């Protein structure tokens, strides 16, 4: 749409559109067969594993890693574990995932009729929904 250079709102809209250019290139969908095969083998989320990975990388930010000079566990690292545990807990217990399956999914169905068994080939015509949990 053409920009109205006499209007502040129009100019602001154009500036915001330019800034959105950084979002160009959406991610490609993961092939569904691969999800079917590999999805079930995933280990699932572990708060301790995530917290460990973060604590390991603390040195990248120039922060000390490991026990305190007194020998005690660093409260910062304890806090890191608590933070991740709470986030993972919320994701596993509170997150709600709704899946929308677009119409057009091809299907094959078997049934019977007065003249005998029938096989139907077709596609879905409505949007299907489903729910999922994060593990």
């Amino acid at each position, binding site marked *: 749409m053409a920009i109205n250079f006499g209007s502040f709102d129009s*100019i602001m809209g154009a500036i915001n559109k*330019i*800034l959105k250019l950084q979002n160009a290139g959406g991610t490609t969908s993961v092939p569904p067969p691969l999800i079917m095969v590999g999805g079930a083998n995933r280990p699932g989320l572990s708060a301790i594993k995530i917290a460990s990975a973060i604590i390991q990388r603390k040195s990248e930010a120039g922060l000390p890693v490991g026990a305190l000079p007194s020998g005690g566990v660093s409260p910062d690292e304890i806090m890191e574990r608590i933070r991740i545990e709470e986030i993972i807990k919320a994701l596993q217990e509170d997150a709600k995932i709704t899946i929308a399956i677009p119409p057009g999914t091809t299907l094959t169905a078997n049934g019977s009729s007065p003249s005998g068994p029938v096989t139907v080939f077709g596609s879905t015509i409505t949007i299907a929904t489903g729910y999922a949990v994060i593990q």
Partner: protein
Amino acid sequence: MSAIDDKKAVITQIGVLNSVGKKVEIPDTNSTLSSLNNNKEPVPFMLDTITVMAGSQGLEKMTGNVLTKFVRNVEPALKTTVTKQTVTHNSNSQLTSGFISGYQFPMKSIDLHGKLKTNPSSAVGGLIYGNNANNFDKSIYNAINNAGTDITHGSGAGAVVLNYDKTTDKLKIRPVVTSQTIGVFIVAFIGGLVLINETEFLSGVIDAMFGTTSAKQDKTLSQIKEEEKINKTVDKIAKDNKSLELTQDDLLEIEDKANNRLTGKAKVDVGCSIIDSNVSLDDLNTLIINTTGSTDPQQVGKNFGSLIDNSFGKDTTQTNPTNKNAIRDGFFKRLIDTMLAIIITSLTTSPQMRLLIGMVNGLKNNDNLSGALGNPLDDIKKQNNLIKCIADSASSLLNEFIFNTLKTELIKLIVPVTTVILREKMKAFTNILNSLA
């Protein structure tokens, strides 16, 4: 969201992009960026955005760009605007008998800024009339200087004859070519005008900020105050103010500005104190010589930077500013704002435009000049719509120019960051595929 929230969001986002791309500090959006308010003027905000992206140098270059690429090329678009706004319902009719005999207008209604009292050949005159030999205001001065004598200006369909009557202090104007339509005459007359002469334009801008030429034109405080009242009213129209009446605050501001222009000084707030800054006629001449010959925006911006740097600190008893960059940024922003104000003034209240408005009024109203040109302030209020349309058009042209420069800078900033983000997304996608294998 309110305008201030929208502005802060943009500035923060640019700061983040800057931070990712160049590893610089994220700007504090509550800081001193003067445009962070609910005002909906695009230019100050776009200039602040440029400052956030490219710092003081960006603003300096922008000033150079506005002069070398905008002001020097905007004349045809401005002429189209003025032509559109002055076209009359009877443009297909022949020129009226009254106009062929000559329209007479009082000089005090034409020369609102006391320009025609100055000889174009004088040192100040050379600056305020500019260096174009075909300048219509020079022809008016010539007519005043040769009272009672016909002075022809221009050629072809837009040519006019000027004759000044010293006794009545009125200027008569009539067309040279009498057998033509009103429309053909107006288009040709506007086509022959010089709306923006660079020397005249620069002098106007610097005078509005520092009073450089006003101080040398022997103007009285009362004259300058009247000029400032006109400027303020035009500004109110341009900014779409509901009331055109001058408030007590406006009058105080006018008084202050007029005093500064009379003494040829501008006040600069340097935080701990207020100091004087001034630009002498020699400084202005140097700027014009160095600037009009250059096509390099960076160099032209630097010329303005030097002018600003040399404008303060002359009085050794005053505090010398330590943060010159902040002062320079403020000046550059004011400079660009003043450039727009001077373009609007050139298109609405300059002597040549006042005469054009007077002529168009007479031609529209079958030679009735009673409402054409009278008390300047009343005229301006009456011509509210015309001035608003011209000001809007000039503002839009400047907004578009600054926006296009801003767009180029934004894309320069975004492309490297976008590349990093895309690489990150590709890496994440590969990791997902690997985790499923």
